[in-house]
């Protein structure tokens, strides 16, 4: 794995809090993601995973705390600004540009999602479509795709902005075993290309095959963080996440 910049974290959250009414979805979260890391995030439903992504990507404003990207404070920046700084996300519920073609969906991200305009955005989009297995669907309206195809489009569109940090929100849910394998291979390939990844996923075995660090969220707080195998094996995680009593 690459850690070109030594220990400088690409993304850092300090004391980030968020509550919706009485429900606390982020309780003083501190998190540092080094450049080149692939971080997996798991946690029961309602643990605050997607809200965490929302705060990192800029769609949700934290009540307190600070988020920095590449050593710059981005807490108050819009999602658009963060995208151009090098951050891209896939949405848990796919958000395609339904009336545009699959190719155009990528072109939007390639044209607007980068700090510097690309010389050949169209060619890069075509390459990404091939890489994500969407080449045959390039001219189809995104609105006519199946849910699985839309999820692949989410990933492809995120890649089209050439992010340094890629946020994946449950891209593997509902995939067959075979599709899941090819997705894991694709994510590993993207990671090997130097992209830092944070991946929220319920399919734990897929996640463990692709990440080098695992974080467990519960009730808006980080309850475990570290090497994937030992995190999964820890009694606390077994109890809270898998429903296995700690004394069993």
């Amino acid at each position: 794995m690459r850690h070109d910049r030594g220990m400088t974290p690409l993304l850092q959250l300090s004391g980030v809090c968020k509550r919706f009414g009485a429900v606390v979805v982020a309780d003083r979260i501190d998190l540092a993601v080094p450049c080149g890391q692939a971080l997996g995030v798991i946690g029961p439903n309602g643990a605050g995973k997607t809200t965490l992504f929302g705060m990192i990507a800029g769609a949700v404003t934290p009540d307190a705390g600070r988020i920095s990207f590449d050593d710059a404070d981005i807490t108050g920046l819009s999602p658009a600004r963060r995208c151009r700084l090098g951050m891209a996300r896939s949405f848990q519920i796919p958000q395609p540009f339904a009336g545009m073609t699959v190719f155009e969906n990528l072109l939007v991200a390639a044209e607007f999602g980068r700090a510097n305009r690309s010389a050949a955005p169209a060619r890069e989009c075509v390459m990404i479509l091939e890489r994500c297995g969407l080449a045959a669907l390039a001219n189809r309206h995104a609105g006519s795709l199946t849910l699985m195809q839309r999820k692949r489009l989410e990933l492809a569109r995120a890649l089209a902005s050439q992010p340094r940090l890629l946020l994946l929100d449950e891209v593997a849910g509902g995939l067959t075993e075979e599709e899941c394998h090819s997705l894991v291979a694709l994510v590993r390939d993207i990671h090997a290309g130097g992209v830092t990844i944070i991946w929220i996923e319920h399919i734990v075995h897929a996640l463990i095959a692709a990440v080098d660090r695992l974080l467990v969220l519960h009730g808006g707080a980080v309850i475990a963080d570290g090497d994937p195998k030992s995190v999964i094996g820890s009694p606390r995680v077994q109890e809270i996440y898998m429903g296995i009593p700690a004394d069993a």
Partner: protein
Amino acid sequence: MSARAFRIERGGLAGACLALAALAALAAAPAFAGSANLGLLSQIFAYIALASLWNLLAGFSGLVSVGQQAYVGLGGYSLFALTMFGGLHPLVAALLSGVLAVILSFPVAALLFRLRGAYFAIGSWVMAEVFRLIAAQIKPLGGGSGASLPTIIVTGMASSRQAREFMIYWSSLALVALVLGLTIWLLRSRWGLALRAIHFNETAADSCGIEITRVKFVVYAVAAFGTALAGALIFLQKLRISPDAAFNVNDWTAFVIFMTVIGGIGRIEGPVIGAIIFFALRETLSDLGPLYLLMLGAVAIVAMLKAPKGVWGYLVDKTGFEFAPLERRIVYSLNEGNNPAAPDSKGDRP
């Protein structure tokens, strides 16, 4: 990893040829059409321009304005002021009115963009009423009762009545060509890609790096320019202006919405078709009095129920033909594999 050889197909050549042929035929119309017909055509052109610009706002940018009469009236009033007090040629004054509208549109948009959806619609209408009330305070232009364009300015344009009619006709034709050309160019450009993305999904557009507010400002300013230019030409044809006529929500927004919705909102061709349908109905039915308005309403209801995408949307669904397609399609070259490292250079810049 290199991409397969491909090119991007936009289409629209047939539509462009047809449009140029129609433009040439219409430009030659003064040679054979009578004065009444030229006047009617000028009105249709102005309405196609207004409807296309409203469509750009509501159909492509989600800005459902009910206050575009603000800019029609502004255009008309600036034309009168600039010709009567500035001594400018009416056509120069019309262009300057457009520029003035652009300048004013920025503070107006800064206020209105704080509102969303229905609130934006109502806010835009309120803004137009403010414009109307201000116009009614301008004493040199007749206050609430309005003013007529002095004869000296009218005759200064061209000495004979026929020459003036030709001049107004050609100006209106130039206006509609400019507005349609500008709209098509804008929507097929990089800006259009952003606009369509915003139209289909604002959340995703934001997270793909598009500065949504900036894009909407530009579109609003473009619409203000064209709408004021149309307003100036409309009142140059009428030769008389009053606050109630210039800032009339029925004439300059309700009918315009009717045309756009009937023709096909969110499609470039829609407002053109809609304006033609509207004038066809008006010319054949307007003698019927109130019944005519009832029939317009009935047509609108039937269209919304049976063809919610409008007449043109219905036809496109049936035939697949578009005059000015906006989509980019990937076409892989047949000789792929022979020369994969050198894709068609057209593919580089969409």
